[in-house]
Structure formats: structure tokens, C-alpha cells
């Protein structure tokens, strides 16, 4: 956990608190505490997101070509899946869910396959695209979208 | 049909206050005037001060607060409570509907 007192040898707790208490009596310590805390939270937050990244970009098959690195690919399952997800890998084709210019990409997936996975369902997988165009996924990264429990699909 | 009956029923319910008192003595909403509001706030301040004292005593008895910490705080709390009681007495003694200028009141 970050040390709020900063670098150097930390003063004894007593001196620190009494010093802050003097500050407290003169101004509003509540505001000081709040301001310091907000600054600390922001600092931690910015540090984390700059190191770990703000998230994986979510793309559709047609946008895949423009991206390198790990992405979250969202698409609709078309064709017939082949292979074994717990063996050499489940191979299926994903197509853009929306848009006029639909493209397809072949995905090789290993790991748990959600029950809802079937042809025609929208799924999201995380992974990277190989040089030969196939999309290789992180094991177990498939999420399917529940067929609307709440609203019939408006096509 | 049932819908119409429901509509009639709710209209009656909504109009009820007017139907019951077609010509009331006063249609004014009883709002707290300044004096009543002050009294309410003074009472709340008194309750707060007394509750704080009571809690300090209970904490001290249960051993959560040491003797020296108790001594350090009890004077302040007793003073607050006395002040709150004085303020309440003053507000109660005031004539109804009187106004006064705002000045620093006890918290």
C-alpha cells in the first residue's frame, strides 16, 4: 500500500497526528482529508490504468485487420463448428453482428464452452489474430450473450 | 367497464378533502413558523448533547474510554449540554410568532 507520508524515514505516529491536529484546529481537516484522499485515489487509479491498461479494445471481425495485440472479438457464429474445445481446439466462424459490410474470421478456441453457444448466437472471445488470419483465443475467454430474457430480439 | 369504475373511484378519493370540507375555516397549510422551527432545532440540539454525554458515560463504564480520555472530554460535553438546555429555555420563553436575527447557535 502506498505510504501517504512519502519517502524518507517516517516520523513517529504521534508527531504526525499532532502535527495534523494543529492543522486541523486552524483549518477544516475534513476538507483536507477529503482532498488528500481524492488525490490518493486518483493517483492509484491513474497508476493502475497506465500500467495495466484501460481495458481490451472490443472489435468486430471487420475491424480486426486494423488492430494488433490482444482484442476482444465480438461476432455471430455462422457455419458449423468443428473440433473439440477440450482437445485440439474448437474451430468456428464469426461474422459481424451489425453493419452492411460483414466480414468473417475463423476462430480457434480452447477451454470451457458456455451452454448457450450455438450457431446464430452472439459471442465474445479474447485473443489475438495470427498471421494467417485465424484468431487464436485465450483459453476459457468465451462469453455468450443471453438470448434476451427481457426483450425479444428486434431484428 | 371495470376501468371506468376504477377511474370514478380514484376521482372520488382525490376529491375527498374538498368534498369533506367544502367551506373550511382555514385552508392554510400548517407550516412551522420561525419560532417553532427554532424550538425544534433547539430540542434536537439538546437531545444530541444529552445523548453524547450518556454515551460517554456508558463507554467509560464499559471500559472503552480510559479515565484520562474521559476527563478530557466530559467537560466539553457537559458545557455543550448546558448550553443546549439554556438555548432551549430561551426559545421556549419567547413569545409565539416572534422572529429573531440569526446568530451563532450551538450545533
Amino acid at each position: 500500500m502506498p505510504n501517504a507520508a512519502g519517502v524518507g524515514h517516517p516520523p513517529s505516529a504521534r508527531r504526525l497526528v499532532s502535527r495534523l491536529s494543529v492543522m486541523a484546529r486552524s483549518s477544516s481537516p475534513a476538507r483536507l482529508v477529503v482532498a488528500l484522499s481524492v488525490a490518493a485515489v486518483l493517483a492509484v487509479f491513474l497508476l493502475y490504468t497506465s500500467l495495466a491498461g484501460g481495458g481490451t479494445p472490443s472489435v468486430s471481425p471487420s475491424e480486426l485487420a486494423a488492430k494488433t495485440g490482444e482484442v476482444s472479438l465480438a461476432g455471430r457464429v455462422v457455419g458449423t463448428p468443428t473440433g473439440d474445445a477440450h482437445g485440439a481446439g474448437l474451430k468456428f466462424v464469426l461474422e459481424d453482428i451489425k453493419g452492411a459490410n460483414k466480414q468473417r474470421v475463423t476462430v480457434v478456441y480452447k477451454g470451457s464452452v458456455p451452454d448457450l453457444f450455438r450457431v446464430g448466437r452472439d459471442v465474445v472471445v479474447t485473443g489475438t489474430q495470427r498471421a494467417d488470419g485465424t484468431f487464436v483465443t485465450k483459453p476459457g475467454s468465451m462469453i455468450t450473450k443471453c438470448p434476451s430474457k427481457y426483450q425479444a430480439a428486434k431484428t | 367497464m371495470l376501468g371506468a369504475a376504477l377511474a370514478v373511484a380514484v376521482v372520488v378519493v382525490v376529491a375527498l378533502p374538498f368534498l369533506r370540507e367544502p367551506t373550511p375555516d382555514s385552508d392554510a397549510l400548517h407550516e412551522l413558523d420561525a419560532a417553532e422551527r427554532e424550538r425544534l432545532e433547539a430540542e434536537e440540539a439538546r437531545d444530541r448533547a444529552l445523548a453524547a454525554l450518556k454515551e460517554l458515560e456508558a463507554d467509560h463504564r464499559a471500559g472503552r474510554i480510559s479515565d484520562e480520555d474521559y476527563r478530557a472530554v466530559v467537560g466539553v460535553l457537559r458545557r455543550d449540554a448546558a448550553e443546549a438546555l439554556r438555548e432551549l429555555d430561551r426559545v421556549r420563553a419567547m413569545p409565539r410568532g416572534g422572529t429573531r436575527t440569526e446568530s451563532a447557535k450551538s450545533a
Partner: protein
Amino acid sequence: MAELGRAALVITLGLSAYALVAGAAAAALGRRRLALSARNALIASFFSTLVAAAVLVAGFLRDDFSLAYVAGHSSRALPFAYKLSAFWGGQEGSLLLWLLVLTGYSALAVWFARKRARDLVVWVTPVLGGIAVGFSWLLVGVSSPFDTIPAPADGNGLNPSLQNPYMVAHPVLLYLGYVGLAVPFAFAMGALLSGRMDERWIVATRRWTIVAWTALGVGQLLGAHWAYQEVGWGGYYAWDPVENAALMPWLAATAYLHSVMIQEKRGMLRVWNVTLVSLAFCLSLFGTFLTRSGVVSSIHSFTQSAIGPWFLAFIVVAVVFSVTMIWLRLPQLRTTARLESLVSREATFLYNNLLLVALCLTILWGTAWPIVSEAVRGEAVVVGRPYYDFFLRIFGLPLLLLMGIGPLVAWRRASLRGLARVFAWPAAVAAATGVALIAFGAGSSIPGLIAYTFSAFVLATIALEFSRGTAARRALTGESVPTAFSRLVGRNRRRYGGYVVHASVVLLAIGVAGSSAYDSVVEGKLARGESLAVGGYTLTYRNLTEKDAANATEIRAVLDVRRGGDSLGTIKAGKNAYSVEQQVSNEVGIRSDKLTGEDLFVIAEQVNDDGTVFFRIFVKPLVNLIWLAGLVFVLGSVITLWPDAREERRLATRYATVGERRERTATT
């Protein structure tokens, strides 16, 4: 029947609009009869909504498939209980449930407060009416449950994942929670609108807030239990936007519950409190919006629907309104009371609040970032689990520690020496526990170890509080231990009920830490007779069974379980294939160990044609503490909610003049 339902909703819309407009006029102009009329309208709106709800329930029970909603979510073969719960299985029905709870709460709130806070209620009525207008408009004009179609022979049936007791209770409890936050919000706005900045709005809504907060908490635990047992991926919380949607208002409400205590004792933090309660309510609206509008893709994702923009507008109105009212009343809200010391109970509550709000906002950011990113940069992103786990630890672990510190620090200012004395024994217990745990191998996960150590600290402080309080009482009254104990709790329900709630949170923390930081997993494909070993257990796949049930075909793989040479019986895992709904669901096998609270969790991931099955098997230590925590949580809340006759009498005397003393005739 559909016409009656539609008419009833139109009537509700009319009544809510009247409550809003006439109520505001009555409050602004000071008209008593108009105010009563507006209040009656608000109460009547509950009954008209009830009629609409009854029509829908009747539609389900009579298999009236001419109602599009019934056809879409029910079928002839559906069991009775699920025909009832299908009411909230879809968007229109859920909105109707929201409105029903809202109008019900509104009616109760204005009725109960009429004696003590009459001048406050006149402003609360239009606020509650305004919220009801929003929802009833959605039901009348945008998304009606009473659309009719030519009746098909049979309905589509209910999604199989909703066909279990959890999904009957979970949405109802969540709504009792979400909507419940509207009441303290309305009273806070009422106080701001009327300029009555005394404590009455807080006193009037204290129990409402606790009930809503408890319902929201229990609802989430039920949802987590459902996810654990029914969805069965091995976890109970996926940081899915819809899950976060319920967690965020709950965190804000937790912060509010605590900071309100400071206002009660010291009269401080008034601005903060009205801001928090507004934040909690706006987050609950936002949560409903997230769940209904499909704006954020999630496992629960719903297709984009027409109500999205309306909801967003609704939230914007609520936010703008709250901010404006707080801004306008800022001078009256400020007090002279100051935080005297950074080492005091007020300060600890402040730290608690800051941590809770920080956690809430980081979750909000993680949930909303995909939408914002897409709108601003044209590129959608997905925020993963590590983000949430990181911030949960950074903010959650200090919060855990503070739960033990806060109750023992004195108000106004506490000396460090005094604190050292008070915390010596619990700190020693915690340190000893930490060392013992390291010896048992808990050092494999530092956050887990910290969570356990802090939990030991908090439990020690709670035990100390109960024992010290009982001892002090006995010293005074000479009662026996059980009598002193029960009298102690009875006389200080809020304090000791609060301790029980804290204990439940600690149990939750231990359960979460155990099952996530110290779990084990193994997976592999097994043919008949083969085994897998994990966490001390050995499981051997015996055979596959297939059975035809009421609306599904049940396939189960049967495994023998052994541990350390002893046979522990069999466990079954497999899948259900639903005929009407054309879906397959995962049916996991769970074996809970009564003694250690750990679960053996078996998933039959893939059943192959040759009879081999790919299994994924978890051992989750202490996971059952999470569900136990739910029970303790409810117990603690009930204790804090229990009416206190002396307190009621005191408040009655205090507020006697504010009640309806100008009654000449009964004007209710």
C-alpha cells in the same frame, strides 16, 4: 382484460401526474386540502397499479396468450410458481413490478409520516409522484405489458435459467432495495425543497433505508448463489455490468447509513448526506437503466430497446434536480460543527465513507467506461476482472479493518494511548491468527492472508464489545449473563445490531477470500473408471445416466468421491436439455462439507458421444460462509430495525407540535 390493465396504468399515470403537479402547487402555495388531495392521489396510484398487476398475474395463471407478454414468457407446461415469477421475467413486467413497489412504498411513506412530518410530506408527495410519472409513462407509452397479439396455441416458455427458486426471489428483493432508496431520496429532496433542514427527514427514513439496503444486499447474495449453482462456472460474481448495477447503489447506501449517524450525533456532514442519498438513488436508476436498455454488453445483455433514451433522460433529470436543490440550499446546510480530530469516530466514519465511495466510483468507471470510450473515441473496450479485483482489494481491505476500529474509537477525539489500550488484545489475536495461518500455508496469497488477519481483528473487537458491555451491565445491575446480554442488546439495538451486521460482513470477507484466493482446480477428459484428484479429494467417473423430466431431458455423469481413503458417496454433474425452450443448461454437482464449509464443485463441461466426459473440478474452501453471512446479515438488520418503545416516545414528544394538531374533523 388487457383494456382494464391498460386503463389502470393510464389512471396511475394520471394520479402520479396529479400528485406531482397538485402536490407541488399545494406545497408552494400552502393549501391544506390540495395537499391532502395530492397525498390521496399518491396512495390511490398504488391501488390502480395493483389492479394492473393483478390483470397481468391473472393473464399468466389463465394461460392467456393473447397478451404478447404472457405468450413471450410463459407456457402451458410451466409450473405454477414460475408462471407467477414470469411476471418479472421480461422488461415490461419488470417495469410494472418497479412501479408497483414504488407506489406501494410511496403510499406507506406518506401515510406513516403524516403525524410527525406533515410539512415535510407536502413536499415529499410531488417528488415521489414525479418518479412514478416517469415509470408509469414508460409503461403506458413506450413499453406496455398489455400489448395483444392473436393468441398462439402455446407460449414461448420461460428461460430455463430463470426456472429456480432464486430467480423467483432475487428480482423482487432487488427491486424492494432499488425502489426503497427512492424514499430517503424523496424525503431529502422534500427537506431541501421546504427548507426544513432539521433531522426529521433522517429520522423518518432511517428504517426505510435499512430495509432497502438489506433487501438489496440479500438480493445480491441470492443472485450470487444462483450464479454459483445454476450458471455454474465455478464462481459467484463476474463483475458483469448488471451485477455491478446492484452493487454500486448498495455501496453508496452503506456509506450513507454510516454518515447519517454522524449527522445524528454531531449535526455535521449535512451536505455530504444529501449528496450521498441522491447518489444512491441516481445509481439505482442507473442500475435499472443498465439492466433494461442493453446499452452495455454483458452476459445478461439485452438488445437495445426503446426505453434506453427515456431512462437516460430520467437519470439526467434526477441528477440535475438533486444538484440544483443542494446548490440552492447550501447556505442552510452548512453547520458550525467541525471535525476536531483525525483520530475520532467521526473521522473513522469519514474514512469509511471515502473508501466506500471510491470503490463505488471505480466500479462505476469500469462499468461505464466501455460506453464512454465508444462515444468519445469510437472504440469500445472491455474492462476485465483484474481491474475490479485490484480495486476491491485496495479499498475493501482497509474497509474491513475500519469495521473493527470505528466502533471503538471515541467521538470528537480519541487519544492514541487510549486506542492502543483498547486495540491491544484484538491486535494480538489478529497477529497470532496471521502467524498460525502462515504456518497452515495461507501465505500463498497475500491479499487472502491480509483478509483473514483483518477479519480476525474485527471479530475479536466485536466479541470484546459484547463481553465488555455485558460485564458492565452486570456490574451495574447484578443480572445473570444471559439476562444482562439480552438486555444489553435490547437497550442498544442499533449498536449491537450493527455489530452483528459487521460480523456478517466479516464472514462474507472470509468466505470470499477462502474461495477465491485459496481454491484449487483441475480439469481433464475421463473415460469410465478414470479419476481426477484435487484438494485432497479423488473423483472417479462411473457412468452416465439419462432421464426424462417434466420439461427437460436430464443427462448426468456419476462420480465416486473419496477423501483420504474414506468414501464420501457420489456426486452427479451434467446437463439439462429443455424441449420447449430449445436450450441446454449446465447442472453442476456440489458437495458441501458441513465441517469445513468448503465445496467440491464438479462441472461436466462436455459430454462426448463415446461416453467420455470432460470435467472441470474445483475445491472452494469456506465458500459456504458467504451464504451463512447472508443469514447473519438479515439477523443483524432485524435487530437494528426492531422498534424501541422509549425511543418512539421520545421522538413523539419532540415532534408533537409538527403533527396534525389542527384537526377539527378527521381529514385523512
